[in-house]
């Protein structure tokens, strides 16, 4: 069955430190992987995606993510966190073999960046 896991409900990091938000997935075919950010009472904003090619993907606002097929992971990273990065982050996957119309979302990770 297709699924996405974000094992951490919350991640706390000091401003200027590197941050990682974890995501693992399970699909039957090739995964199409996405990261989104949500600020309070707003819709989700797209950050980056992996479909094929280089395993390291760079996206908006200095974020990047690494696709690891053997570990079925797609962790979100940023070298130096900003207070303005504090938000709710969602990982999502589409199954390249299954119902391609559906997106499967993780439960979200709240990122707190402290000054």
């Amino acid at each position, binding site marked *: 069955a297709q699924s996405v896991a974000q094992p951490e409900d919350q991640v706390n990091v000091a401003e200027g430190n590197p941050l990682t938000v974890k995501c693992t997935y399970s699909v039957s075919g090739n995964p*199409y992987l*996405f990261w*989104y950010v949500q600020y*309070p*009472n*707003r*819709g*989700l*904003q*797209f950050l980056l*995606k992996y*479909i094929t090619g280089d395993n390291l993907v760079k996206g908006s606002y200095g974020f990047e993510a690494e696709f690891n097929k053997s570990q079925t992971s797609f962790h979100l990273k940023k070298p130096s966190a900003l207070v303005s990065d504090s938000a*709710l982050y*969602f990982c*999502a996957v*589409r199954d390249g073999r299954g119902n391609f*119309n*559906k*997106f499967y*979302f*993780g*439960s*979200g990770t709240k990122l707190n960046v402290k000054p």
Partner: protein
Amino acid sequence: SQTIHQWPATLVQPVGSPLSLECTVEGTSNPNLYWYRQAAGRGLQLLFYSVGIGQISSEVPQNLSASRPQDRQFILSSKKLLLSDSGFYLCAGTQGRNEQFFGPGTRLTVL
């Protein structure tokens, strides 16, 4: 670029009243469209999706329904709201292999 419009932004409705939330899309044609509900600022629950006019797939049996009368219009409805229908409703679209793009959401409170 693609844009999704949702209205209203906030809505307070009594239990048992009807509901109609509208979503319209600009900047693309033949998109897949989706309705999600988000409770308490956490995970997204897929309610319905549509791959074309008049084509609706329901993910969760409940007292909500969806319709797609035009290519760029997606409507979420209920005949009688329940307290448990409260939440943040998000409309999203996608085309091809691309990511989903989301609307600003509607905050529904059922009293």
